[in-house]
């Protein structure tokens, strides 16, 4: 099926088997292998990308559903030598070990911060009347869809907090 997806700012015309997930289209067809396959069932978050600015599990989405969408993968966030602040913060805080969940954590963090900025509440949000305070509990709740088996969780919180620009 013919599908055009804008990936990291570049329109990519694809001719895809309709069974292809967005994850496999990124990894195998476009060879953007920064997006990881950890479970293929939406349980681990390693495949998180931003679609039109919103974070999704790319393994749970067929690529052909994204005709006309703008997808941002880790490759679009920043590059070696020109790291985005969130990438630099992950490096500085040692917010990863094996690194396999890291691209998903970073994309998820970017999506999450946008959700907070848009004042979208979570289960941890106690006050729905004012701007959301990004407490550690709020941050942890919102990042719990991204498993890190090396368990760099405290460092991930520190890294996100370092770039959030939001008070705790």
């Amino acid at each position: 099926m013919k599908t055009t997806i804008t990936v990291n700012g570049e329109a990519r015309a694809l001719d895809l088997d309709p069974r292809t997930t967005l994850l496999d289209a990124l990894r195998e067809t476009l060879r953007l292998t920064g997006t990881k396959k950890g479970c293929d069932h939406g349980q681990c978050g390693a495949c998180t990308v931003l679609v039109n600015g919103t974070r999704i599990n790319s393994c749970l989405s067929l690529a052909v559903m994204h005709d006309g969408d703008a997808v941002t993968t880790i490759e679009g966030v920043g590059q070696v030598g020109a790291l985005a602040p969130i990438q630099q913060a992950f490096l500085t805080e040692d917010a990863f070990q094996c690194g396999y969940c890291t691209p998903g954590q970073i994309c998820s963090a970017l999506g999450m911060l946008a959700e907070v900025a848009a004042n979208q509440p979570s289960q941890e949000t106690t006050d729905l009347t004012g701007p959301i305070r990004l407490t550690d509990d709020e941050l942890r709740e919102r990042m719990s869809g991204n498993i890190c088996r090396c368990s760099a969780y405290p460092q991930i919180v520190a890294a996100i907090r370092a770039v959030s620009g939001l008070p705790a």
Partner: protein
Amino acid sequence: MSSVLDWEATPNPVKENRAGNIGKAVDRYEGPLKVTGTAPYAYEVEPPSPPAYGVMVSAEIAAGRITAIDTTAAEASPGVRLVWTHLNVPPQGPRPERYDFFTPSPRPALQSDRIYFFGQQVAIVIADTLENANAAAAKVAVTYEADAPMAIFHDHLDEGVQPPGEQDTEIGDFAAGFAAAPVTIDDVWRTPLQNHCQMEPCATTAWWDGDHLTVNTSVQMVRFAQNSLAETLMIPAKQVRLLTKYIGGGFGGKGSFYEDLVLAALASRELAQPVKIAFTRQQMMHGTVHRPATVQHVRLGATPEGRLTAMSIMTVTHCDSRGNFTEHASNFARSLYAAPNRLTGHRLVRMDLPVASAMRAPGEASGTLSLEVAMDELAEKLGIDPMELRILNEPDVDPETGKPFSIRQLVRCMREGAQMFGWGRRNLVPGQVRDGRWQIGVGMAAAIRGNMLLPAKCSFSVDAHGVITVRQGMTDIGTGTYTVLAQIAAETLGVPLGDVRVEIGDSELPPAPGSGGQFGAATAGSAALDAGMNLRKAITEIAVADSASPLFGGPSQDITFQDGVIAIANRSERLADLIRRNRPDGLTADGEIRPAADARNWSQHTYGAHFVEVGVDTVTGEVRTRRMLGVFAAGRILNWKTARSQLTGGMIWGVGSALTEGNSVDPRYGSLINQDLAGYLVPVQADIGEIDAIMLDEVDDKANPMGIKGVGELGISGAGAAVANAIYNACGVRVRDYPITPDKLLAAIMAR
């Protein structure tokens, strides 16, 4: 052979640490690649031509045989290149009767119609795309004749046998000592089967160039896997190049390798095309390895003053029907507390279950969950602070072997941790502290994990730019190997960290045992130090013999290496200039490490103390870890940042072991009930509160020439017990069947 006493007496640049690279909180060497998604893991490596895709088909019974396997529909499916079962897979080296951890041997795939465990691979489908391979794999029709599996471990506890080559160790007379003890603990703890759940499923990309095979795979032990694969394929090892540059978590589960590697190699040869095969998450649970369940019988006898007079842990555990892996949950107790009468041992039950093997801190991770809670129970019975009880029973020498400890700072870990955590402020009576709906409790436990050094080699090169390259067939499974090797190189050769390159994860590099048993940094690093020293020597010889060098004439012994400059007294030049003049193509030196002949004359361990605060909701049974502190003594620390991450990571594994992690066997099918990350609950962000790990100053000069030890497995040891003890302090009940899930905790609270 060297002596540890030589290591102790001989200075070296790592010990001297003049430039301060050792111990520093250096960012990960490969970190920029990992945060940008440009570190290629095994399935992502670019093969020389477009690959075909393999999908494996797994058995749906736990014991029995395949009576028919119909592949016609799969073979006719679009894009399919080949389908292999036991009926048509190419010949492979024969499987030994039992596998051994350290001896390479064939690991053949799809060998017969016999099924030994649920999830055993029974077929492989290779197709032009992943989608076509997946669709075709679903069309492989397998008919089985199923036997009733022996799958429920707890029904077979009395069938355990002595593990091969082992015996119980008894010191004094345990039975008499226990019978005579005025205060005793006699309880049974259960730990469940656990899955590694590395984020990267096992995967391989393979291709051939003539009779030479290149495999990119995800394994912890490079040379072991290369040799075993070569034996499987029945070709010389030199025809196999195995690459494993980036590994998405190992934790022991990638200590060996699986059918993805063998079948990718075979299929790419057959098709004359690169082949990629990955395990699915579901296949990982059954088709790789797991930590087996244990039942641990702990008996402690003590005087009213709190002196242990008798101590025993007897562990029953299980492995697969063709295995001999034993979860040595009793071993650590042999070195932990003094007691004149002691008995430890293991019994092994062979089951129709998937293959048991090592998972992070095999032995200690399970065993501390019993003994370190038993100590808490004993302390309460005696009316003694649980930390003071441990200190009272601190041994002067290894209580079982009588050997001196190389260094042992367990008491200091406990004392300093207690002070930092505010241990003295806790309420001794359980169930007295409340914060809203939460009942609050604190607990502590000791940590111990052995230390090892294995043989390894390494090479160091310097080029005409003064850049040092470290080469070693070592792995980095997230442990920080790249980074600590770079630090050792920078310190040894006196160059800036930015002037060091590290090449690992390649079977063509000097062999190292790989990552496991927290021996990685000490083993790989000691070989690196030796290579660095040899390169220094080679550089020195060139400098003092080069009449164009200001260092000409020596004296050699006064040479210094600093900031990329070599100097003797006030005569100096840039290292790069010397090399460019004398060795424009660079200069290489090799090094190696071997265990010292007398290393076993000392009892060597890493130690720690865990302190945990939990909240327990006694209405829902929910437990939250609010605060965790670990204080550790593990020799010289090479990198404060990466070591601390390993320790806190291990502590979080302890939380998982205490509260959520465990798999159950379905008695009908002999399968694991939790087949993915939705059912098998590893800790997530929201499960973890405030956490810190402190590393005490320590040098263990008897461990290796650098005085370092490992930290990768220390953090988990004891952490879960501290959580369990905190739960008791919060709500006054003990659950001795891990994990302590809300259903079990509520039942215990109701029964109280």
